[in-house]
């Protein structure tokens, strides 16, 4: 007999198991229809394989697993698929879910089943596959797919296999009945599980309130070739909790955040093991289970072999449940089970018990009183938590503190609420807090992602701004350098005038423009007066004369200033400005000419004046034109002398070459078109053109090649830039892939491995690019120095 350890806490609620043990296990009659939810366990729902109206045989597979953590479903009897749709399912929330409905034909015709004769001779993979296709899921609790637990990867070395026959919740006797009636199957299943996971230690834990079951199992275990230890543990709730049972039988605690397999322990419910036996030996899928029907409202409480999908109401009727007295219908035990809103829901793979309770048996909870911090909850908590503190934190929405007090280690066994003298629904508080925390975590993840996105964008914008600023600065510096490199004027004009001749010029220009406008206004007024004969035309004429004088004086000043500015050798002749000035002068001349003809036609007295001003304007225009041409010549000669900017040269040459090429192409096309149409005139016209353009393009290309050859620094620079951007791109790719990998790992996606390989390659590339850049940089530096 092996040693029994103990776990902290636990309670001894009234067992209430005798009611359902008064009669032996009995089969249940065939219901009118079977409702099979596609999701009966944790994980993802299954995918239907049959269509409405299809005939199915007993044991025929009707739904395939939707993912890794999902199971097959089979038809519990032969019949017709009458519907696939939303039906209420057994769930704490009372929700609807997708179900396959089968109408039995009563013939019970089996599909062809194939077992494995000698599982010891078969490969582990085949045996595990057999269990998988039989649709086995844990029949004690959450319904985790059995084959996953029994077919572990090689990095899980299992030392201990535990069969859980504890059944610690009050009322439930399904496992007790199973062990009494089918001890051989339980041991047979244990043998298969042992073959699959090769543990060094095989244990069965049974509570001491099931002596008959323990005896039956002991007898069966004695006949087994395996060395199976049957451990009878003291009755205490919740000894049947996986983690509590492990502590109880091995003295080891499953570390926080790990599963038992991580410490080499696998726990299987005895019901699941019996199903494993049937699946492997007979190939029989999981289509029925033992369910306890009990409670004071039931006339014939007992254990029934029910087909999966049997509506709860059918079982209630069979057991003679008095619907008038029934007040609380509990799926599962009284400690952790959930209430059903309506008896139409089906029994599923995890339905071990149904309690039809009366008002007297399960009175409504008395109103909660204040917590007096008596600490009784703490004394019974099997996870060694501080339930009352968690209650305060949940109530005050202090979820951070609740987490720090390990709220997430709560198994919701309900022991704390059971003993609470203030009748506080503690478990409800914990469920609420857990839900809120999970919600918060999801929101936090989202917010974090948004923050990262935002920060990345900000950084990018900032970088772009800096880049722009840098370029601007560089341009400004280059310009300043270019200016200072020119010879300074020997003598600058003294005074403020010289300090800023440009501003002076501008001011003068404005003044002159204002004077001109005034003059024009005055002239117009005079014209009007003359035309209508109203007003004092003489006074107006005087005004015009005065305005003219002022305007002329300002014009003169302006001209002087302009000449001065032009004479200033430091001032680069502003070609553009001069061009504009010449154009403006020309326009003025033409306008005045037009005005003059008009005036002459009308015979207005202003014609004389206009003629005068036209003469001056013509002179001005000529002057402007001359000045522009001179400046242009000077600039051309300056450019010829200027050899400072070969890069610019190359660019210009490149453009020229490109332009020449384009022109050539166009001409060629035109020529070929002409040849096609046979237009001899056009051919004659285009041929010399093309020849000429060819020569031009060639010349441009040669010039470009020469210029490029003459300039050794520029390719290095370009190289460096290209390398820099290549390295940056490689880095970005690595970062992106890293993020994607992290995401994939978090979600447990299969693509993580691929990403990892890709990441390694990218990292290599990034390193290469970085190295190339580093190599190039000193080279570039050397060239610059030279």
């Amino acid at each position: 007999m092996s040693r029994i350890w103990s776990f902290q806490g636990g309670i001894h609620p009234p067992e209430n198991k005798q009611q359902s043990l008064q009669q032996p296990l009995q089969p249940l009659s065939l219901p009118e229809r079977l409702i099979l939810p596609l999701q009966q366990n944790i994980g993802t729902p299954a995918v239907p394989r049959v269509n409405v109206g299809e005939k199915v045989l007993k044991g025929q597979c009707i739904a395939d697993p939707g993912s890794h953590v999902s199971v097959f479903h089979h038809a519990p009897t032969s019949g017709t698929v009458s519907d696939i749709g939303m039906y209420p399912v057994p769930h704490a929330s009372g929700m609807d879910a997708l179900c396959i409905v089968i109408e039995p034909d009563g013939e019970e015709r089996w599909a062809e089943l194939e077992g494995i004769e000698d599982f010891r001779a078969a490969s582990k993979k085949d045996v595990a596959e057999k269990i998988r296709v039989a649709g086995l899921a844990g029949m004690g609790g959450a319904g985790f797919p059995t084959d996953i637990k029994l077919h572990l990867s090689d990095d899980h070395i299992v030392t201990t296999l535990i069969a859980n026959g504890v059944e610690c919740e009050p009322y439930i006797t399904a496992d007790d009945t199973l062990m009494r009636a089918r001890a051989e199957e339980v041991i047979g299943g244990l043998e298969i599980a042992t073959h699959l996971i090769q543990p060094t230690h095989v244990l069965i834990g049974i509570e001491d309130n099931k002596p008959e079951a323990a005896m039956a199992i002991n007898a069966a275990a004695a006949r087994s070739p395996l060395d199976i230890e049957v451990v009878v543990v003291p009755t205490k709730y919740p000894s049947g909790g996986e983690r509590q049972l492990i502590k109880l039988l091995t003295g080891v605690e499953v570390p926080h955040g790990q599963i038992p397999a991580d410490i080499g322990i696998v726990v299987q419910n005895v019901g699941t093991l019996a199903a494993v036996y049937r699946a492997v030996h007979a190939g029989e899928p999981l289509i029925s289970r033992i369910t306890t029907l009990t409670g004071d409202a039931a006339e014939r409480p007992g254990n029934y072999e029910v087909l999966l999908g049997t509506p709860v109401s059918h079982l209630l009727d069979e057991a003679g449940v008095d619907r008038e007295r029934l007040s609380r219908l509990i799926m599962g035990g009284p400690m952790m089970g959930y209430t059903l809103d309506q008896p139409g829901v089906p029994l599923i793979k995890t339905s071990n018990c149904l309690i039809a309770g009366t008002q007297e048996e399960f009175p409504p909870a008395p109103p909660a009183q204040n917590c007096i911090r008596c600490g009784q909850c703490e004394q019974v908590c099997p996870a060694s938590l501080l339930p009352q503190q968690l209650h305060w934190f949940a109530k005050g929405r202090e979820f951070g503190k609740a987490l720090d007090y390990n709220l997430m280690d709560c198994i919701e066994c309900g022991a704390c609420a059971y003993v609470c003298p203030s009748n506080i629904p503690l478990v409800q508080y914990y469920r609420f807090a857990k839900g809120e925390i999970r919600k918060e975590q999801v929101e936090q993840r989202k917010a974090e992602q948004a923050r990262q996105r935002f920060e990345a964008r900000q950084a990018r914008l900032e970088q772009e701004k800096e880049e722009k600023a840098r370029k601007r600065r560089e341009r400004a510096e280059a310009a300043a350098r270019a200016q200072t490199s020119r010879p300074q004027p020997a003598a600058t004009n003294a005074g403020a005038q010289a300090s800023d001749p440009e501003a002076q010029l501008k001011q003068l220009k404005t003044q002159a423009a204002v004077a001109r406008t005034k003059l024009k206004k005055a002239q117009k007024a005079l014209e009007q007066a003359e035309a209508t004969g109203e007003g004092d035309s003489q006074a107006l004429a005087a005004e015009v004369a005065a305005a003219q004088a002022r305007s002329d004086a300002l014009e003169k000043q302006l001209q002087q200033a302009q000449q001065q500015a032009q004479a200033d050798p430091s001032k680069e002749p502003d070609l553009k400005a001069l061009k504009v000035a010449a154009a403006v002068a020309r326009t003025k001349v033409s306008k005045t000419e037009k005005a003059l003809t008009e005036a002459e036609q009308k015979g207005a007295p202003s014609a004389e004046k206009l003629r005068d001003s036209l003469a001056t304007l013509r002179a001005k225009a000529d002057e402007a034109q001359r000045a522009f041409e001179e400046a242009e010549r000077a600039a051309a000669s300056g450019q010829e002398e200027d050899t400072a900017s070969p890069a610019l040269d190359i660019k210009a040459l490149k453009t020229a070459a490109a332009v020449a090429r384009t022109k050539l192409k166009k001409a060629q096309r035109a020529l070929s078109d002409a040849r096609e149409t046979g237009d001899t005139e056009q051919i004659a016209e285009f041929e010399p053109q093309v020849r000429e353009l060819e020569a031009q393009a060639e010349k441009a290309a040669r010039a470009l090649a020469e210029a490029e050859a003459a300039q050794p620094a520029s390719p290095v620079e370009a190289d460096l830039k290209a390398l820099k951007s290549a390295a940056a791109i490689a880095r970005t790719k690595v970062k992106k892939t890293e993020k994607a990998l992290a995401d994939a790992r978090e979600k447990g996606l299969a693509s993580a491995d691929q990403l990892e390989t890709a990441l390694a390659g990218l990292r290599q590339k990034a390193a290469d690019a970085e190295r190339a850049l580093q190599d190039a940089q000193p080279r570039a530096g050397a060239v610059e120095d030279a």
Partner: protein
Amino acid sequence: MTLIHTSSPHTGRPGHVGGVMRQVILATLPGLAALVWYFGWGPLVNVLWASVLALVFEAAVIKLRRRPVAFYLKDYSAVLTAVLLGLALPPYTPWWVTLVGMFVAIVLAKQLYGGLGQNPFNPAMVGYALLLIAFPVQMTQWAPPVSLSGDNPGLLATLKVIFELTPLPDAFTHATPLDTFKNKGALTQEELWAQVAGLKDSFGAWQAVSLAYLLGGLYLLVRRIITWHIPVAILFALFMVSGFFYGSDPSNFAPPLFHLTMGATMLGAFFIATDPATAATSNKGKLVYGFCIGLLIYIIRSWGNYPDAVAFAVLLMNLAVPFLDYYTRPRTYGHKKANKGIRG
């Protein structure tokens, strides 16, 4: 048939807060009986008078807070506070002193904080400490044991004294052993026992009362209403420290048995320090809490201004409870070590 939809668990252990409180009140009865036996009707009158006041104050405040009065009165917590304060008062405490004490205990120390379970300080001890500071004369006039005064004053005479219809006769006052020891001056312990008249009688009476409290405390332990941690830690600490000093200077320091059985040690250890609302939460925390109370009792008794120290020791440690709670959490299943400190 309408089916009830509720969350698990669907069953609970019968019993509620009122039941717990009644059990504690029941457990004080041996002590009360011993007090009445040795010191006359005074303690019984005090307890009853305090209980009436407690119910009145509690009902008034609950009414003001617009809560169901009957629902809250049925938790018996106010009556328990009254019983504990009543037991701690001198037998012939004037009625108005008790009234002030109960007002402070129920209204200020308990209800102003939000009622049962929300109060950081033990209400009975807040009331007691305030009375001790505000009315030192009334609070230090303990009665002589019946064996010394000769005959037991009748219930009517006691009532008349308490409600100040007749003045307190001299024969009704007597120093407690702790008082006597505190004011022994230059006398050695041997001289004290030889010279002070009635000390031995008084000592015997107090020992009997302490034994009665111990009996009630054991009952609470058996009924699992309290855990062993706090009383054992208090008595252990007091025993160790008094033993150490008695061993080093027997003529100047009282022996451990004297400290364990005189004054309110037993009442404090089993009934007052174990008040769950104001004590430390975890088992480890309870041990530290109790040990510190034991030490403080000895320190205040030996070097403080007051002959007894249970009230002050408990109140001081009430102050430390939140801190203790943060640092004495149990190790959760599957965790390598317990979390400590303030986070989250």
